[in-house]
């Protein structure tokens, strides 16, 4: 009786293969056109489709949690960070260490080290920040050729400049 089962199974497979091609032919301008990948969860898209990764990329959701970045004050161009140390205390893994100088309102960050290799991207540091100083970026290609996983303040500011935002939590519906 096993022969029947195999034939039935192959028939199902064949039907599925044919079904995919049929749908693809029916909607001829295939979704393999540029812009077709904008909606990645859409059920209305049919057909054969593979993302050609290095050339094409998915748009990350606004809330995507990638590498940490530092934000600048839009007027002065200085980093918003006041080296209060809240992120350092909030981090479950001790990924962040920082130094600052000055007292009260003049306090500024002088060194900020962020260990990318140990970060678990939980966003607790950003939630603890009261000065719009840090946010998680949408960077996800974080591999390195060398073991330089520790990012300094300049590297983090560079990532922040790429995104051009000055407030944390805009995508999360929380702005302070």
């Amino acid at each position, binding site marked *: 009786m096993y022969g029947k089962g195999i034939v039935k199974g192959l028939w199902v497979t064949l039907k599925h293969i044919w079904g995919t091609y049929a749908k693809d032919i029916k909607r001829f301008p295939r979704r393999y056109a540029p812009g077709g990948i904008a909606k990645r969860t859409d059920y209305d898209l049919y057909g054969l489709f593979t993302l050609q990764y290095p050339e094409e990329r998915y748009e990350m959701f606004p809330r995507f949690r990638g590498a940490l970045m530092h934000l600048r004050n839009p007027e002065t161009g200085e980093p918003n960070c006041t080296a209060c140390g809240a992120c350092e205390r909030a981090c479950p893994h001790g990924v962040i260490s920082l130094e600052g100088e000055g007292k009260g309102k003049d306090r500024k960050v002088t060194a900020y080290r962020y260990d990318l290799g140990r970060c678990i*991207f939980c966003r607790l540091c950003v939630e603890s920040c009261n000065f719009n100083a840090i946010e998680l970026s949408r960077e996800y290609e974080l591999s390195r050729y060398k073991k330089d996983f520790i990012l300094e303040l300049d590297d983090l500011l560079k990532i922040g400049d790429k995104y051009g935002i000055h407030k944390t939590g805009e995508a999360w519906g929380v702005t302070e």
Partner: protein
Amino acid sequence: MLKTETITINMGPQHPSTHGVFRMVLTLNGETIVDLKPMFGYLHRGLEKTSESRTYLQAVPFTDRLDYICSMSNNFAYAVAVEKLAGIEVPLRAEYIRVIMAELTRLVNHMLAVGFLFNDLGAWYTPVVYAFRERERILDLFEMASGSRMMCNYIRPGGVAADLPAEFLPQLRKMIPHLENFVREIRFYLSDNEIFKARAVGVGFLPADMAVAYSITGPVLRASGVKYDVRKAEPYSIYDQFDFDVPTQVAGDVYARYLQRLDEMDESLKILRQAVERIPEGEYATKVPSRLRPPKGEAYARIEAPKGELGFYLVSDGSPNPYRWRNRPPSLINLSALREMCLGHKVADVVTILGSIDITLADVDR
């Protein structure tokens, strides 16, 4: 009379069908299993002890990593435990969001469980890919809401991390009929498959009394015919306001566990439909201090995670760090009955039975 000798072999720890680093010491008489000893601990990370030196909020990302397939459920269980310990009230909208996330997680888990059961049986990756296609869409929803596909860190003590994004609920509403169709499709194509039935019916039988004696929970218990579900037995959150059944099977074998998971997916979708309709506007979280100091005492909270009863036992001594942080993982306790299920079967059936229990080794070893 042919004289045979038993031999002892290792299956694992690196074995394609053990769902992780898991070793079984099998004593065989020919092909028949005489004894089985599960060996685990290869993935032990000491999460319980690590969490004791963190604050209550800092331990939330660690719960993601207990059972990485259903991280939202782990967050949920931990949040319920902390709320019980500190006496925190949760807004109604947050409760609805939690229920939606927990039921989506159940769908994700059962999709993988059913898919990988077929993978273990030799239907190499065809059912899994169909399951993955739907799972990926649910994970996209998770990413939209929480920023990460699997390590969500979304459900926190006091509520959820952030309100749902505007496009979440319309997307989910659109998705539910497709998910129902997916379950129907799996039933139609796989349930009557002769090869699957020959491999699954009558294999890995677990009688109801033995399941209770081993304190098995979740789909494995219900497939043995015991109608027990924490959502009904001890309703937490707002599960008492939803209309759903607890499906059970009679047979208690691999096939029954497979059918049980499909039935539970239907019930999850039923809950999701109601939750999406009724979700109110309002606050998404109560303000909880980041260095929460619960009063002295202890709390045990349990929820019905996709794999079974997931519990957290927390002891507070009044300081910001928990004095004891204990986790009751469903995978480990369901795994304890593996020997009883496997005795007398062939080696190839061990793979099937292990797949039907549906364990995650990160949850077993912690």
